[in-house]
């Protein structure tokens, strides 16, 4: 029996919750990476719960932390929708670009990809391999190494091709590197000379600890994140930092990455996520 159900059982049954049970609940909440502050708040909320509606109240305590914004993709009505993927190194941007492109293509819309990681060795080739697999055109740079120039060029070409979507992959970067964040801002700026950027998605690796908050804060301040892709949710990590981000920064999780192939992307399902944090 998972702790969540055990907790609920304690509440609905006659027995009082012993101090050891509170300690166990605290441990479980902490282990999910929601962070010590949220853990403390939730424990306080749980202690106030009346036994008859404990289950409801506990789900609500957790769910009340979710952000209320729409989790639907933002599209540019009547024009090309441009989606940028950003995040720290190795969090799953390139794979997620391929997954999203695969979904869009399957829905019947036309999509092109801009290979905006002009920095990491073989990043362009990685995306080209994905492009070939899913049958989506990948626009690459002229070797100048300037991601803004590539993105500008790609936006122009995608528009000329009448594409419904342009997905822009970007190089991984740590949020504390100011020059790299400025580079990202520039990518967005130059694309917007041609067409508005509809959505900026931040990839957060589900194994990330409390540093995920800093990532979300700084990327958001720099390029205005509209949603999160919680990647690598197929592992043992629970990805609780995403709940902390939703709660504190009001940025919705939109997608969940659940594996390494293009089919492994699912729209975020709040309820199963919340239950997953405790079981």
């Amino acid at each position: 029996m998972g702790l969540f159900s055990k907790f609920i059982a304690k509440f609905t049954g006659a027995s009082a919750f012993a101090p050891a049970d509170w300690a166990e609940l605290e441990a479980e909440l902490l282990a999910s990476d929601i962070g010590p502050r949220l853990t403390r708040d939730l424990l306080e909320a749980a202690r106030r719960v009346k036994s008859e509606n404990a289950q409801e109240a506990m789900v609500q305590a957790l769910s009340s932390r979710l952000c209320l914004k729409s989790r639907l993709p933002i599209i540019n009505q009547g024009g090309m929708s441009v989606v940028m993927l950003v995040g720290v190194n190795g969090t799953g941007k390139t794979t997620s670009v391929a997954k999203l492109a695969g979904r869009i293509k399957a829905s019947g819309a036309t999509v092109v990809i801009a290979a905006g990681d002009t920095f990491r060795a073989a990043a362009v080739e990685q995306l080209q391999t994905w492009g070939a697999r899913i049958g989506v055109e990948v626009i690459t740079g002229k070797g100048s190494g300037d991601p803004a120039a590539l993105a500008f060029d790609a936006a122009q070409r995608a528009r000329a091709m009448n594409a419904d979507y342009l997905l822009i992959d970007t190089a991984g970067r740590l949020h504390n590197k100011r020059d790299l964040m400025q580079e990202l801002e520039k990518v967005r700026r130059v694309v917007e000379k041609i067409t508005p950027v509809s959505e900026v998605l931040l990839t957060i690796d589900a194994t990330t600890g409390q540093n995920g908050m800093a990532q979300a804060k700084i990327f958001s301040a720099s390029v205005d994140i509209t949603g999160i892709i919680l990647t690598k949710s197929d592992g043992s990590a629970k990805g609780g930092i995403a709940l902390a981000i939703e709660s504190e920064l009001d940025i919705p999780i939109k997608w969940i990455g659940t594996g390494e192939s293009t089919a492994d992307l699912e729209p975020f399902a709040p309820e199963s996520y919340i239950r997953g944090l405790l079981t």
Partner: protein
Amino acid sequence: MFDSLTSHLSATFSSLRARGKISHNDLDASCGQMRAALLESDVALEVVDSFVTEIAGKSMAALASMQSGRNQAQAIFEIVNSLLIEILGGSARRVRFAKNPPTVIMLAGLQGAGKTSLAGKLAKFYADQGNTPLLVACDLQRPNAVTQLQLLGASIGLPVFCPEAGNGVGDPVKVARDGIAFAKAKQHNMVIVDTAGRLGVDTQLMSQACEIRDAVRPDEILFVVDSMMGQDAVRTSQAFLDGVGFDGVVLTKLDGDTRGGAALSIASLTKRPIMFISTGEKLSDFDIFYPDRMASRILGMGDVATLAEQAKAALDGDTSKKLEAKFASGEDFTLEDFLDQLSAISKMGSMSKLLGMLPGNAAMKKQVGNFDDGEILRTKAIVQSMTPHERVNPKIINGSRRSRIALGSGRRVSEVNTLLERFIAAQKMMRQVRSGGMPAGMGTMAMPATAPIRPELAPKKKSKSGNPAKRALEESQ
């Protein structure tokens, strides 16, 4: 990394220091703060609890035998420091070379941890020491991981064994086995095996990792882990330990601002030493892990030993010799030297990285994290607006001199103050480095909270100082 932990701990220690005598209640409160700080830093709960319990026990024993609060706080500080060093692995361990070459190093870890880049960094590190590493490309899973390794190898002029193009095709176990045979035939004395990222819960891929291991019989299996990792570090490192086993840990992406508590969790739970750190995207952004340096960094002492080493490596022969001679003769590190270094330092790349290693409390480091390298120019302007006499004797730079320097350099007085405070702290640390090296002898050092880098960050007395320089400092803030 560990910045937040640092700031929490400095707060803890400065509140302890403020007491005349530390009571058991004070100690309890401090342990509570420490627990919160460690959890906020992603250290696993079980590790936090046993750490804090041990600190409390040892501190209790130490308190009894001491008189003043100051000594007691110092004692607790030392207990925390040495326990941190102990958990982080005592002294740095090096790779064990095989009696019969080649020495085989196998990398393992989660997806996106940074194994492929690390393979390149390790190869460069050992090639620079005269070894002849062969890189073996066994990540046949992630698209173009093989290409990435080939490009890395080419950029450092080292061979890459890659008979399979990868992208989901080919048998990594066979590549691994053939790679060893190839290395023997070509007399490479070292082999570095890159493998695909895999989840701890993926039993199929974990048994593939075992097959690779059995094919190459590694001298070292290194578990590569992202320093931003959270609580799952416990489960994942245990899964890799049980699944394929490992002998050492490599922490990657330490150039981020992560608190890096996963390092403490993994070292403490798996009893495997952290051996290397990866600190940037360049192949040279790599170093041996020093537990004592990391502990002093955690405690806000600044990583002066690394700073001194890097400074030495980056300085021109001339500047470096000059500085060494000064060190040897017992002369002080002056603002002149500082100015000399500034130009040389820009060669080292990121100034922010360097300044981050200076001693100082976490709040200052945070500011440093936002440091833009254009600041080198501004700092230079400030130093150049000082008279040669002032540069050698910064102590004489009083309030009116500070205003003059600010005016001359077009900067604010507070910027001049900040620079001077930083410099004086650095100078002090340099002296300590010289007189007895770093840093086990923390006992000889002032506690971090006794020397706040920026006075407004420490609890401050209301009274204005009788010392004109100090008063100017107070007034300007």
